[in-house]
């Protein structure tokens, strides 16, 4: 671990101030479940770590007129217990899928949205794009856990966020502040993620001096049904190899609106627009979900070793849809 300064702001303005120094070579710390690993392996080397845990405006979950605001310091545990979130089943299911008590206790929802890819080339020091002499290590190497969508450019890792698919399906926004002290913007989460073209670009649109303070969820209408399905190999600390989150507006058993978002299959969360459109106007049955899942993966472009992820993703979509309408075999949950 490289030496770094440690800063502990108590207000959002102070946090922005601290983040802006050192030409923005700074990092935000809340739960630290990802940052600490990156620091220890020298994968990131910020000159200052800004600990936001003492910025009280970023604590807690609150109902607002048009929805719910979740602070950047809210841990998975706190979210699981929050009555404000009981209608957002897909998100609670993902918390439940974090079968690590440590991760539930320390990790934050906003931190999850901002975490770096788990690509082993990146974590072993080959940079975000894992290029060596201009060639992609991922393309010619071991890409079993890499992207099957959106992988034609230099970025072939998968977005590490487990909550982004659920939040995006719910049409969530993130509140971004900085780099100017008074700057504040609510960004639809689906536009928050970015696919880098160079090693120095990040995986989100955040610029130096900016941070996410909250994530906002719209009011859940009574006809909205949501669910997630993550393909997890282990009953412990694990990351999904494919995942899907769905949010459906179901009236008289007919789907009126649908959003299907895939996780861990592309450098960003991957919205399956076409598949979602195919579901609208239909009942959710074994047959329709099979058809919709086929559409969701029909444009997949697997790499040399990850064709299996296409099938996994198909299964995740089917199961998330069935789970949303309580038709999933409980043994498969």
């Amino acid at each position, binding site marked *: 671990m490289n030496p770094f300064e440690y800063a502990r702001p108590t207000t959002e303005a102070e946090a922005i101030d601290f983040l802006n120094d050192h030409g923005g070579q700074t990092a935000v710390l809340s739960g630290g479940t990802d940052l600490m690993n990156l620091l220890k392996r020298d994968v990131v080397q910020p000159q200052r770590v800004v600990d936001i845990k003492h910025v009280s405006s970023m604590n807690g979950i609150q109902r607002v007129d048009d929805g719910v605001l979740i602070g950047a310091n809210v841990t998975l545990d706190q979210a699981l217990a929050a009555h404000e979130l009981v209608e957002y089943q897909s998100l609670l299911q993902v918390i439940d899928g974090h079968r690590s008590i440590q991760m539930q206790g320390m990790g934050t929802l906003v931190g999850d949205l901002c975490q770096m890819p788990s690509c082993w080339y990146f974590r072993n020091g080959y940079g975000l794009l894992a290029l060596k002499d201009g060639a992609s290590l991922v393309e010619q190497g071991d890409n079993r856990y890499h992207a099957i969508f959106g992988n034609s450019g230099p970025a072939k890792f998968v977005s590490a966020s487990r909550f982004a698919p659920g939040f995006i399906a719910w049409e969530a926004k993130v509140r971004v502040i900085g780099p100017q002290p008074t700057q504040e913007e609510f960004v639809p989460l689906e536009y928050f993620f970015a696919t880098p073209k160079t090693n120095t670009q990040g995986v989100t649109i955040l610029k130096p001096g900016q941070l996410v303070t909250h994530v906002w969820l719209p009011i859940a209408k009574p006809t909205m049904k949501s669910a997630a399905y993550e393909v997890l190999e282990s009953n412990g600390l694990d990351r999904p190899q494919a995942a899907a989150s769905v949010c459906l507006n179901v009236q008289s058993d007919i789907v009126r609106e649908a959003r299907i978002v895939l996780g861990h299959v592309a450098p960003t969360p991957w919205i399956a627009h076409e598949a979602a459109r195919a579901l609208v106007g239909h009942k959710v049955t074994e047959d329709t979900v099979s058809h919709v899942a086929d559409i969701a993966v029909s444009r997949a472009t697997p790499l040399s070793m990850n064709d299996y992820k296409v*099938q996994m993703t198909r299964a995740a979509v089917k*199961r998330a849809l069935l789970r949303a309408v309580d038709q999933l075999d409980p043994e498969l949950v």
Partner: protein
Amino acid sequence: MAERKVTWGPRDKHTLIGKSIQRIDGVEKASGFAKYTNDINPPGTLFCKLLVCKHGKARIKKLNVEAAKKVPGVHGVYLFKNEGDTCNWDGDIVAAVAAERSQVAQDGVRAIEVVFEELKHFVDEDDLAAATAFKETVETDGKKEEVSRAKDLVDRTVGDPDAALKAAEVVHEGYYGINTISHMCLEPHGSHAHWQTGEGPKLVVHHSTQNVSGTGGQFATKFGLDAADVRIICNYIGGGFGSKFAADEWGWAAAQLAKETGRPVRLMLDRATELKTPGTRPSGYAKVTIGAKKDGTITVWKSHHWGTDGPQGGTIDGNQMPYVFDFENKVVKSTGIKTDCGPNRAWRAPHHPQLCVVTDCAIDDLAAKLKMDSKEVFLKNIKQLDKVAAQNSDLYVAEINRAAELMDWKAKWHPHGEGGKGSVKRGLGLAINRWGGGAVKGTCMVKVHPDGGAEVFLGSQDLGTGTRTVIAQVLAETFGLALNKVKVNLGSNAYPAANPSGGSITVGSVTGSTRRAASEALWKISDLVAEKYKVAADSIEAGDGKLWSGGKAVCTWQEACRLLDNRALEVMGESPVKDGLTSVLVGGCQMADVSVDTDTGIIRIHKMVAVQDCGTIINEMTAKSQIYGGVIMGIASALSEERIMDNTTGRYINADLDTYRLPRIGDIGEIVIDLWQPDSEYNRGVVGLGEPPVIPTAAAIANAVANATGVRVPVLPMTPKRVLDALKGARA
């Protein structure tokens, strides 16, 4: 006087031996009072960090550590390699820096000026064609030669395999493999070393070792000391699994840095280096052809396997293929692949788990082809065993039948591929094992104090498996004392030289020597008691804190020991070899009940049954613990655990606890253990149990998956990727 013979005595008279008894050091361990090498931290200790090679293979073009030495707080640098040397694998250690704190040592490592020139590497362990094609020039005795990375090792033909194959009523051909795994000791390899002046040994090393008595000499030779000048201490160890028998260069580095700096030095490998450098288990991939009669009787075995054990160029042992079974007609070939991967070391039952996968999976596939019950095909061939296992053929039948009973095999069995209508299929599998586990030479000293205190000293070690506890049980049982009235001293080479702990030899070695020494001590005390209390010496028995004769209490243990006339009684005991206290050779059978989600490729273990003999059992609880541990390690290598080498970079890319996947408690299902212990087992003496239970687990699980789905997942671990790839391949 009747002949005095050391025996385990009648089974039903024991109050401690054979019972389920919690580890006597459990509280120390659970509470953190137990000090592992990684905890040794006297004032002044310096801490080390390592510079390692991060290429598949590389030459060190430049190496300058002067800047590192100037980092404030850095006190010393030890060079494992010099400028111009070659690093032979990712993780090969170049230098260690000792500093006031580990973070400062890391700053020192960062300050080292090092330039690597990457060399061509080869790390592709399952591709025999690529290994054969990969040639490089090797110079021996001035002669240059083009050498391939693949080398044929075993090529053995018995009987007339070709004729047998022609005559076979059914022929099965299959491909099987199991990847390399690391030892993944939770406590990494390492040492704490300090030099002292004045009385006592000059060099004191707390060393994380399975070989307390055998390591001192390796330090002594290195530093020009007498062996008497080196003290090795290891009271607790956080895992070794066969990889911790040597001083190792990092042990020497700690001692050298301690010598140069005049300070105690602790050097523990970091997690990535721990996975890459101090040993792995070799891989093996095999093409197998079996010929058989329609009733399942195997008439011919043909196999060719290859794989790697790293720079040595070996693979799994061809001389033991097929495993447990043996057939009149066979051809066995093996080809070793030399790779630029980390080296191998003994891994819990060296070669056996891999051999078991190749053999028992092939036999299971034959059963599938014959549409027979796998268990029946195993039983059909149970008379065709190798010379070692043949001594146990009746035992195998009994153990397989017992396991089937516990698994409810008959009710649950279905033909291969008929695992259910939904996407989740369920199936059963079995596999069998063999192991030696006999005792080796070693010594202990039992000491009885005039106040009745009793202790034993021996330079053995407790790997966490309960060695202290079983020794205490034997000592207390022999003297008729409560368990907490005896003391066990181990973990130091100051004590009488004892066994290393490998090959499942420990329990026989330490309990045998302790029983012998304690019995002789008891006889001496009995003689004194006989004289004083006028009873026949050979009528005296110890129990319940007293000495008894003819069913009457003669005196208390303390009263008896007072007869020692103020001088402690010390008796040396030799580890037994062929004296009835210990024996060798076990069989064993495991069965698996699993389900396979054919949509996601995820396998879940419902139930494992392990039936295992091990001779006289000293402690039922710790014996069962060994089996739990073995089965869990077997589940790991069946489902998730593997070293992943990246062909492009030549690196071990999953060398961390995140991507080197081990099962969690929720992944292991129900494990049912049956210790096979009829009187005939008790009567044959103690046999070690460390290794056998890890052997058949992976093969049993692989066979259960094949039974569930009707598709063989050829290479282990059976990750979701490999399951889905196999299912897709079968549909194509």
